[in-house]
């Protein structure tokens, strides 16, 4: 398809890229867009793309598609569409502009869509950082039965079963979905808040508390001591 594609009018090229992104239910990675344009056979997993994608043409194609996407974005903005193309969940997809998303979030029909309970967020955080992880492992960390929560996260399509663990009982392994990335506005799991930073934050907080408490304790003792002395 590559040759045909480049022979097309640039406007038509843009429309083809736009319609592919528009119709794709999952955010579509740049690489996949290239493959579709290049060989029209991306669905065939048996094909080995590495040869083609290493070729300079492929990088050029990626660049070219990126240019086209940016031009489409400009068009969408200039014609005041309330949506644009964003990069999230590892690919390109259509989403509302923040301005009109804000309007939607004021409407009751859309308002509650993104609400998650504390328990769901907690469980989701554990799965996001520790994936792939089994339910017993989640429960070990949370210290409580989590079937219900895991179940509702599955139903919300925020997590998925990614396999079974090679341990007694062969429990399911859970991981997060693209839907999770989309909901949290992440392009990949690398964009999750850094867990090491969170760890040191928690430890510092605990240490600080320890120190404050020690000082208070010592002061109290001192006062007690003085009182005793005066008596």
């Amino acid at each position, binding site marked *: 398809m590559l040759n045909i594609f480049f022979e097309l009018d640039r406007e038509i090229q843009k429309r083809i890229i736009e319609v592919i992104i*528009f*119709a794709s*239910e999952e955010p579509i990675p740049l690489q996949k867009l290239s493959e579709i344009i290049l060989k029209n056979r991306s669905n065939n997993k048996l094909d080995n793309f590495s040869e083609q994608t290493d070729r300079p043409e492929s990088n050029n194609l990626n660049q070219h598609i990126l240019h086209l996407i940016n031009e489409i974005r400009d068009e969408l903005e200039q014609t005041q569409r309330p*949506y644009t193309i*964003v990069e999230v969940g590892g690919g390109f*997809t*259509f*989403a*509302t502009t*923040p301005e009109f*998303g*804000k309007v*939607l*979030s004021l409407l009751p029909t*859309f308002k509650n*869509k*993104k609400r*998650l309970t*504390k*328990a769901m*967020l*907690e469980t*989701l*955080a*554990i799965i*996001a*950082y520790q994936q792939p992880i089994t339910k017993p492992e989640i429960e070990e*960390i*949370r*210290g*409580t*039965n989590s079937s219900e929560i895991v*179940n509702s996260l*599955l139903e919300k*399509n925020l997590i*998925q*079963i990614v396999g079974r663990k090679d341990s007694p009982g062969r429990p399911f392994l859970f991981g997060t979905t693209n839907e999770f990335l*989309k*909901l*949290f*506005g*992440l392009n990949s799991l690398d964009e*999750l*808040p850094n*867990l090491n930073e*969170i*760890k040191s*934050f*928690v*430890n510092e907080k*605990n240490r600080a*508390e*320890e120190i404050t*408490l*020690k000082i208070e304790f010592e002061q109290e003792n001192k006062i007690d001591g003085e009182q005793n002395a005066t008596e």
Partner: protein
Amino acid sequence: MFKIILPIFEGPLDLLLYFIKRDEINIYDIPIARITDEFLNYIRLMQSLDIEPASEFLVMAATLMEIKAKMLLPKEKNLQAEKEQDPRQQLVDRLIEYQIFKEASKAIEEKLYENQNIYFRGIFESDIQEIASKLKTFKPANVVDLGKAYFNLIHKKEDEVKEIKLNQLKIEDGIEYITSVMKTEKQVSFSKICSGYSLPYKILFFVAILELIKQKKIYAYQSEFQSEIIFFSTSNLLN
């Protein structure tokens, strides 16, 4: 009027962290006796409200008491063990790990909040085709959905016998039936009343008979142990 709302505890670890925060306890040096008392009080409170605490709360209570006991061991005996590990260490490690993920959940919630004004396209071509073909309930299915569908089917079958059929029957109907039978028969056996009826009706008639006996409208009579029970209408007896 005061209404007391307890924070929602996600489990025993959450509850312990709550005590630690509320009482400004040093997590590295937890006063185990005090916190065990607090914990047990909470469980008693739940029980006094007729809430059966989840088993994990009871497991934690046992763990706390075990640690408390270890801490009470005489110092000399405990000296060696103390060098190896503080009996509280494992619990503290778990609490801190849980703290970390609670903090992480706040961090990802922040992301959610930042992203709250972005909505994605709601419907795709394949959905439209499905809507057009009037099969509105298509949804992507995972393996748990599959298992659940099977599970629910199996259980629906059992429930049908237990509930649905019985729900359609009313005790009044049973009483009416028995009364009408007793009008024509001076005495009647239970098996005769029930002959030709299915199990749910047999149960209904049995309950109706108990009710009529209670109301003293019929008498039950059994000639000997394990023989057929015969019912008499009280009005017939009087006549």
